[in-house]
């Protein structure tokens, strides 16, 4: 079968692309989690100015296309001698950070107020109770939507092809344009994405299982 032969023959270049897709996603999501946590805290800080800063950030991310954000980061950061890779990673992190901030905020606010009060009644400071009591429970609740956001980020990283990053999607379109046979390569790349998504879904559900021993 033709398609299968092509699939096998092109495996080396697609695997290279997959590695880059993987790196872009993992690094940007790790940064986005830190950014998201920070902005989630700003949003629940009850300090007006900090809340406004978080609101503006989230509004900007939601209100503009991701591809625009990536281009702004790309042109902005590469002019400061930052590499293409890091420009795209930071663009993706900026974007996902807003969604992850909302995930964390929701998770933290979903924890029963009695938990904070119980901690406080034992003499804990607000921040100690947040760290030891609220956050461990909130991260458990945040895990399913975080896993979901991770998968969105993985697929969104295909937009890095627009600025020439040789990740999965770019490999497919490049091969397609060389051979004038886009369909074959698009179907191949779809398989790679599905495998990646499946792989991460399994990891997320394994973590969920491990974290749910106390329920």
């Amino acid at each position: 079968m033709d398609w299968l032969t092509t699939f096998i023959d092109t495996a080396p270049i697609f695997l290279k692309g997959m590695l880059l897709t993987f790196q872009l996603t993992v690094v940007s999501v790790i940064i986005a989690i830190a950014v998201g946590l920070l902005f989630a805290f700003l949003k629940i800080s009850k300090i007006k100015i900090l809340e406004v800063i978080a609101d503006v950030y989230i509004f900007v991310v939601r209100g503009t296309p991701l591809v625009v954000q990536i281009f702004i980061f790309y042109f902005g950061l590469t002019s400061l001698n930052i590499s293409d890779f890091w420009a795209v990673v930071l663009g993706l992190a900026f974007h996902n950070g807003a969604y992850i901030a909302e995930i964390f905020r929701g998770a933290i606010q979903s924890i029963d107020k009695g938990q904070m009060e119980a901690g406080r009644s034992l003499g804990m400071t607000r921040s100690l109770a947040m760290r030891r009591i609220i956050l461990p429970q909130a991260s458990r609740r945040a895990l399913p939507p975080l896993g979901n956001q991770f998968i969105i980020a993985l697929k969104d990283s295909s937009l890095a092809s627009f600025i020439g990053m040789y990740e999965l999607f770019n490999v497919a379109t490049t091969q397609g344009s060389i051979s004038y046979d886009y369909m074959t390569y698009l179907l191949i790349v779809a398989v790679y994405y599905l495998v990646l998504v499946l792989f991460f879904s399994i990891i997320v559900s394994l973590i969920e299982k491990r974290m749910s021993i106390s329920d």
Partner: protein
Amino acid sequence: MTKSIIVEVNKLNKSFGDLHVLKDIDLTVKESDVVCLIGASGSGKSTLLRCLNFLEMKDSGSISIESEEIDQHTHDLNAVRQKVGMVFQHFHLFPHKTVLENVMEAPLHVKKQPKVQVKKEAQELLKKVGLSDKENVYPSKLSGGQKQRVAIARALAMKPDIMLFDEPTSALDPELVGEVLTTMKELAEEGMTMVVVTHEMGFAKEVADWAVYMHDGRIVEVGHPDELFTAPKEERTKNFLDSVL
């Protein structure tokens, strides 16, 4: 023997917006006193308890803990709360920690005591409330009565000078009320100072040194439980007792 004063409240007032919830509350609790607080829903019992450990901030009046007036703006309230234990109606155990970890949490991370010692004391406390066999179980696996006994052990682990109980048995199935009351009774017999919001008149009669009846944000009547429950002086107390008994 003169007993020292643990809590002294003078002219305490508290409002939530326009709602004046506590009105000129005066209350003195001495060492090893057991005080039962009764009153209709919304009369301000919980709010009073919560003011005593500063989960709620007073608007005016004074609160002294062990003869030291607490200024809620300048005092280290976390240090004050370490001395004032609190047990809630809905337990509020930490669901992500085992029973033993729940009890160890505050001595370990607030007082920063050595782990070996904390563990030993936590195990003793769990033995005292009859839950030694549940040490490594998560709260979700416990009955309501067991949860509340763990919550009591958790509060005791900080070695408080006074324990506040806010309707500790009213979320429990009737058959589980007894075990919690027994634990509280033992605590009272050991000389713990306690303020208990409760509708368990039997417990109040048996254990309390005196009872306080609150109505609409005021303390209407104070007396020995036997007298207050059987021969209340105030008409409002009488009406309330008629309605609950």
